[in-house]
């Protein structure tokens, strides 16, 4: 079931087109990655979902109805440009944000106490925000984002500003929220930080959606059919055996063992490759080279820009 659907979203700013007919379909309970370089239009799309700005064209559906004002209570948003009132006390401030998200004061306090206990930060309650470090502020900010237990959580560059330990704590909390039924959208240009979490992605570049779908399918589609084999034996002998149907991309020596990267050119099974190699040495490891989202991303963007260039040539 789709929790969020964006159809043909167009947003024009005075001097550039921020979004050009972008579609988005986020399944309930999924972790969705909205990927793309800086300035691609991710933040604009998210602002439209949060009803901060309105699209020039296109529609957003949330929970099977057209997005309406009250839906902000079901959405939690951690913007990239985030901050807290520096002179306000942490507890007071967290209550304020929770109230703006529709919680009653007493509800807000009891939930906040739980979260503060969980993060072991009860001592901060009466401190002013400016007395906290950047990382501490981020934790408070995270709590204020999720406090109303929304159906949809949107994190724009969630891990920037966190040290690895705290980033991990936050990651675990996000996964817990997902288990409880929340749907999560990550928006980032830093693919590595989210690729292990996302089940679906959309790739936006220069205001157009380039690629969209489940992570596994995309990975498979962009699979290179490359494998890394570690073995003990003679490299030259191996090279001689792997001829027409294979291509050796590179080989290197680590601790006296050889590691060879091989691409299968035809539709041949990996077992065949192994069989061929058995004679040339002692195989110690075998693994498929899975393209990182980063690689796929760069490849797709390059292809797209090539296409648009050709397009402009033919015109």
């Amino acid at each position, binding site marked *: 079931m789709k929790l969020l659907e964006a159809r043909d979203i167009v947003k024009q700013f005075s001097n550039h087109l921020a979004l050009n007919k972008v579609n988005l379909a986020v399944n309930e309970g999924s972790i969705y990655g909205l990927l793309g370089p800086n300035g691609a239009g991710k933040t604009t799309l998210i602002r439209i979902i949060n009803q901060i700005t309105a699209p020039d064209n296109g529609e957003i559906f949330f929970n099977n109805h057209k997005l309406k004002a009250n839906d*902000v209570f079901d959405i939690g*948003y*951690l*913007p990239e*440009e*985030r901050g*807290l*009132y520096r002179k*306000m006390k942490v507890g007071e401030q967290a209550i304020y944000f929770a109230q703006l998200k529709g919680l009653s004061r007493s509800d807000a306090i009891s939930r906040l106490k739980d979260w503060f206990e969980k993060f072991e930060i009860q001592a901060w309650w009466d401190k002013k925000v400016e007395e906290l470090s950047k990382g501490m502020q981020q934790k408070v900010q995270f709590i204020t984002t999720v406090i109303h237990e929304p159906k949809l959580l949107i994190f724009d560059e969630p891990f920037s500003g966190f040290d690895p330990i705290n980033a991990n704590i936050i990651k675990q909390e996000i996964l817990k929220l997902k288990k409880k039924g929340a749907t999560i959208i990550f928006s980032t240009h830093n693919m590595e930080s989210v690729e292990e979490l996302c089940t679906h992605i959309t790739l936006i570049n220069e205001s157009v959606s380039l690629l969209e779908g489940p992570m596994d399918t995309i990975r498979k589609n962009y699979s290179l059919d490359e494998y890394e084999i570690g073995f003990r034996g003679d490299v030259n002998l191996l090279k001689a055996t792997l001829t027409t149907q294979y291509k050796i991309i590179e080989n290197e020596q680590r601790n006296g063992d050889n590691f060879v990267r091989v691409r299968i050119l035809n539709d041949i099974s990996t077992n065949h490759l192994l069989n061929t190699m058995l004679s040339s040495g002692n195989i110690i490891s075998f693994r498929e080279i899975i393209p990182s989202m980063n690689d796929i991303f760069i490849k797709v963007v390059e292809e797209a820009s090539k296409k648009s260039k050709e397009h402009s040539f033919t015109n």
Partner: protein
Amino acid sequence: MSKISIIIQREYLTRVKKKSFIIMTLLAPVFMAAMFIVPVWIMTRDDAEEKVIAVVEDETNMFKDVISNTKYLKFEYLEDATLDDLKTNFSDKGYYAVLYISPKVAYIPNAVQLISHKQPPLDLTIYIANALEKEIEQKKLETYDIKDLDKILKAVSTNIHVQTIKISDDGTEKETSTGLSMGIAYIGGLLIYILTFIFGAQVMRGVIEEKTSRVVEVIISSVRPFQLMMGKILGIGLVGLTQFVLWIIITAIIITSAQSLLLPDDVGQTSQAITENIMSAAPVEQIQVPVTQTQDFNEIQQVFNSLHSINWGLILGSFLFYFLGGYFLYASLFAAVGSAVDNETDTQQFMVPITIPLILGLFVAMGAFQNPESSVAFWCSFIPLTSPIVMMARLPFGVPYWELILSMTILVLTFLCTTWLAAKIYRTGILMYGKKTTYKELWKWLRYKN
């Protein structure tokens, strides 16, 4: 609770709890009260010390016992002493000063000298001069040998006070006091100017704070930008009202308690009038008239009559209306400016068109104290950017109801309009970072839809 009331609550509470607010709220009335109390206190304190003044003359005894003693001033006429003797040792003998009157006094005004170690107070010299003038005039008149001079003088002595009475269209007469009206006009206009400026600027600073701390995007994912802006404007407006009311209450308390400590009983009555006047925001000059004690009781009565002639309900109601109207108008403009810049130093280019009409309004209001019916004052009391200040300055002198209602209507319509425009600039501006905003840019923002 609606979102806008949550925002109002935060804006209000965070400001009211601030140390600077509490200090300002307490200190300002102390200064204000000091302005009223110190002159009275100085006057009473000086009088409390008894001064004995030696009076010497050369040769003649023309002025013996001419200068009568008062409660705090004693004049001792020394027939045998000479000025030169006394000059050296008058303070040893217990005299505050030596008054020397030369026989030429009837022809040379400078022939009277008061010699003392300290600078004598002004009212002492005036008192002496008056007494001597009267005596010399009397003596000069006597030389004409007019029969029954005393009676004639008594008969011709007159005392004039111009009573101003205004007749309204329906024929009812009211005793007025120009001084009182001027005072009320002055205070009303100035207060609106100051309050609008202080709290309008606070709105701007609040918007900039939210923008620079990047908290704004978090908030507007929960509330409409318009709600955030209005919540801020209303919240700070309430802070302004609170502070204003507290100022009046605290000032009144300080003055009432100071009066019982400082003032002797016979001044109590007049100081009572002072506090009453301050409570009703009446002018200073007016009150000091009765304090000088020598004045007729009639005059105190007159001030009270004028006080009653002022339509306090109308003045206070209009003050509240124009304060809120003017504040809303300017606060929305200040909010728009705050949203367009990244920090306070960038505000200057946008501040100029806002501050100029405010300052202009104050200048026109100053003119209106002198001539409330001048055409500049008349028109400026309708132009909404100046009307709150100028109309408050005209109001105590009497303004036809149609003018008041028209001016108020224009003000309301304008602030609805500016709030709408400011909201358009605001919701685009708060999400713009790092770019230096120009007027051209603002114009573009105004035309964005949604």
